[in-house]
């Protein structure tokens, strides 16, 4: 699986574009551009890292990606800590409470993924064993 020259060119362009914009004027680069850059570069990293995974471990790969996608817990925690302090409008207070409960539920779902995903991956990986050659020789002797 060889990366084409175009692939590298696109990559380089993606890295350089925001910098080029930043250098070209005194305007600030929209932070959105950086987010998109990070997203696309991460997708490329994902591409190479995943191709390097041995097919024998594709099931643990799926369960560990389940686990790490539980990182949405970050958003869920922020939602659960939304503050009603200083809010007097009852409508807004109600909405914030709705967000806090949605956040708590989201924390619970993400936690199932995090705990379940890492544990089951660990359980699977513990089963992958190499041939025990020394033990066999001892048997034969």
């Amino acid at each position: 699986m060889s990366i084409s020259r175009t692939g590298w060119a696109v990559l380089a362009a993606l890295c350089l574009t925001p910098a080029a914009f930043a250098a070209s004027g005194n305007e600030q680069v929209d932070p959105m551009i950086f987010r998109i850059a990070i997203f696309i570069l991460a997708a490329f990293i994902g591409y190479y890292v995943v191709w390097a995974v041995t097919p024998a471990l594709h099931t643990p790969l799926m369960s560990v990606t389940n686990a790490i996608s539980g990182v949405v817990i970050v958003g869920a925690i922020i939602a659960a800590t939304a503050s009603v302090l200083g809010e007097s409008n009852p409508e807004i207070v109600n909405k914030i409470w709705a967000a806090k409960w949605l956040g708590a539920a989201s924390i619970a779902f993400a936690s199932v993924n995090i705990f379940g995903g890492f544990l089951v991956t660990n359980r699977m990986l513990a089963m992958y064993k190499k041939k025990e050659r020394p033990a066999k020789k001892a048997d034969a002797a």
Partner: protein
Amino acid sequence: MSAIDISALLYLVSAVLFIFSIRGLSSPETARNGNMLGIIGMVLAAGTTVFLVREHLDPTTFGLIAGGIIIGGGVGSVLAQKAPMTAMPQMVGMFNALGGMASLLAGLAAFYAPAAFGLIDAEGLMSPRSLVEMSLSVLIGAVTFSGSVIAALKLNGSIPGGPIILPARHLLNLLILLVLIGLIVMLAISPDAQAGNGYLLVGIAALALVAGITLVIPIGGADMPVVISMLNSYSGWAAAALGFTLSNFALIVVGAIVGASGAILSYIMCKAMNRFFVSVIAGGFGADDAATGGAGGGVDDRPVKIGSAEDAAFILKNSSKVIIVPGYGMAVAQAQHALKEMGDKLKEEGVEVAYAIHPVAGRMPGHMNVLLAEAQVPYDEIFEMDDINSQFKQADVAFVIGANDVTNPGAKDDPQSPIYGMPVLEVWNAGTTMFIKRSLASGYAGVQNELFYRDNTMMLLSDAKKMVENIVKAL
């Protein structure tokens, strides 16, 4: 450096740890350390977030967070310890569903409490861009959730595993997609929604839940590995969309990587079946051909050689090299432990034993490898298709247990065959090919396997586990 900058750097560190956790899976030796790095990354990401919001941790809020983690973590831990290895496909399907649901709920929460997410301008309004990002995490999360629930139920056998064809399903899906796009545009430009009011986002969630069902229900059987990988990918894109809402590096990076991972697995599975991703996702495969395939099978009354466990044991014992080809039938019959015992007995007799795995054997990528690992078959006795195909010529016996289509010679030399062009394991090159099957029925693709009628093929018609146990007894 402000607290927000430090936390952004810490999120970046956890993203790097997640990358290493997947990198570790390049070999079984580094995989467990990789898993540990992933756990550290997760603790770091969650800990950083709690640190950021520490001023808002009143007792009620703390209770909500701790309660969520304890309940969810408890359920997850119990599931992870108890689930049998044969149930891994539906387990992963269920985890996909929960990941989608978590993104869906977090996206909704961001809509109701935009101030906490830093999404409002001086007038207290959300930008159209934020609304689009939110609706994407809600939409993809919802499709992932309902689609994965259907997939998990199919894999669990709770609903029929085959394709369920809805009338005019392509038109229906297209219509839903157009309406969803329309709703997102409406949401983005609606002054009401920008002020955090109205039920448009809830409507998007509801319709996307329907879309998940209509998308997955027509896909069945052996196409499941593609579906599971695809939904795995979606759960990543949903997380990435949430990452854009929060401008959070860890979420964006994880989302992109998980998304890429699922997409690559889908690609590998499609390639191993010689099918196009779009035609798999369009669904219905197997349903249209089953009728013709079944009828074709009925008229075929050529003689087959049927053997007993004793016959098989005799031939196996006197060979010098045996290659075992497991398939979904082995998983269904839970025959992996008996199979390992048979392999051990053969090795005691001085027979060389190897296992050959087709990429789409089973119901998810790597399914067979996990089952064999569970039965304590060493992973260096297990080979991928491309590495072992040339060795069938030197093997005395190819022992096919619960696989069919992935051994069909028609895929190589019959251009009329529906599976023509699919890469297969060349078991017919072995001295004798043994098939453990419950009947002579055609495989999932509804295609007759020419191999059953060849002279050097021996059919062992029985439940896979029972047959292997009988062979072990006879050895």
